[in-house]
């Protein structure tokens, strides 16, 4: 078992020279989707997950901000509006560290294909839009394993904003970036905030090797492309159900 694991160890995890905690190679793989709200990324990841689930692959799906450990603190911070750009960022990092150490890393070491709806790039784009230093953020998340594929779903700002605003009764305070004082009108604040995030994402396309996906393409056509790229870049056979 251990020899097998070494043979198929992902090359991406060897980039741990500057890691705050010791990293070792793992047999699993990590596929991530990123993009602003309304870019269609969650829909596409869901369809990818269904395709793999139906095929019986060993996989696990994980979402940003879903750890029960720090949920009460996040809720309290948001409700009472205690959060600053720094504490907002640190609390999400603590939350992510919990998911990373107790879920993502063990699964990667256990040979799972891990699908993540949003990853550290969400923090880089969003927290920098709130005023955190990009250099500080990079260090903060340097414990996270590098994804094998990062799909970046990009939709024009107007398309994305219209999708979100039409689908929700009311934008939440932090979601709309109201803590930044960009505008007193929530939808307007949301728009300016999302524009900043979009610009920050765009700057990471090259540095972080994003696979750019056009969020305006028809859902089924885009999904076909996504499945094709996953098939090319990841040795899916290693996650396939074992035949007896």
């Amino acid at each position, binding site marked *: 078992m251990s020899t097998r694991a070494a043979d198929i160890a992902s090359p991406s995890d060897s980039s741990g020279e500057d890691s*705050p905690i010791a990293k070792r190679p793992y047999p699993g793989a990590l596929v991530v989707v990123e993009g602003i709200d309304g870019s269609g990324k969650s829909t596409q990841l869901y369809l990818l997950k269904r395709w793999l689930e139906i095929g019986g692959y060993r996989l696990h799906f994980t979402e940003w901000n879903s750890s029960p450990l720090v949920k009460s603190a996040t809720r309290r911070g948001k409700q009472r509006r205690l959060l600053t750009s720094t504490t907002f960022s*640190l*609390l999400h990092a603590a939350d992510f560290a919990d998911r*990373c150490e107790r879920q993502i890393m063990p699964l990667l070491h256990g040979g799972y294909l891990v699908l993540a709806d949003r990853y550290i790039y969400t923090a880089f784009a969003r927290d920098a839009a709130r005023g955190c230093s990009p250099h500080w953020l990079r260090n903060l998340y340097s414990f996270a394993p590098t994804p094998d594929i990062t799909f970046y779903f990009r939709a024009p700002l107007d398309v994305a904003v219209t999708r979100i605003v039409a689908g929700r009764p009311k934008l939440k305070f932090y979601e709309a970036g109201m803590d930044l004082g960009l505008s007193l009108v929530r939808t307007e604040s949301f728009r300016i905030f999302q524009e900043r995030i979009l610009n920050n994402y765009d700057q990471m396309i090259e540095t972080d090797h994003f696979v750019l996906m056009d969020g305006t393409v028809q859902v089924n056509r885009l999904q076909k492309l996504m499945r094709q790229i996953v098939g090319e870049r990841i040795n899916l056979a290693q996650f396939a159900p074992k035949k007896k």
Partner: protein
Amino acid sequence: MKKNAKNPAAKGASNGDLHAPRPGDSSRFYGTPLPGVNTEELSGNLIVIEGTDGSGRSTQIALLTEWLESEGFAVQTMGLRRSALVGEDIDALLAENAVTRLTLALMYSTDFFDQLERRILPALRSGLIVLADRYIFTLIARAAVRGISRDYLHGIYEIALKPDLTFWLNVRPEVAFDREFKKSHTISYWESGRDMSLSNDLFQSFIRYQSMIKHEFEYLSRRHAFTELDGEASVSEVNKQLRKQIAAELGIRSTHYHPSHALAHLWR
């Protein structure tokens, strides 16, 4: 042995000059400034007392508060796990003990910055004297002995405000053990580093853990120019040393002080 395992990681990433305080840098921060702070407005003083449990920190802070108030200075205190944002959550995590070292380190940093931004900075803007019962150094030391790289930790805390004075009440682990045992008749899970599986003998575990922390403090003391005081000296002697340095910093002429009746029991 554990020490060696941790050092390469810390050294390997020693592009650490990036975060090291630059000579002649008058900045109030260690590196990148905390977003949204105008340091010109900070007219108060930040004084930090560091030291392990049993080093006498809280006793000294109680006495210093009384002395400073008698001299006409308004005092604000801070300590670990006291933030409105996550103080209680950390208590719960510690009790539960399912938390991993990295998450705990980041929860402590959230707690620290919540207090810094919403309590210390407003106090400093109003010209108060802030007495901090521990600061980033304890948080760095605790995480570093658990194998998290020092450069990573310094990177997180580079946006913290530099104290005007940092005192380290240095005591030997054996003395800290005696004092802690006398106070609470037991040794706490975390203060003896039991999460690190150092020894099943709790006395040994405590001594080894506190020795590792002390080693980190020796490094931090050099790096950040602490004023090191002999925490094993009498309360009145340590207090005298503290008053002398603080008086010089704040321009207080007389360092004369004798505790009031309410605090007399601390004076031994």
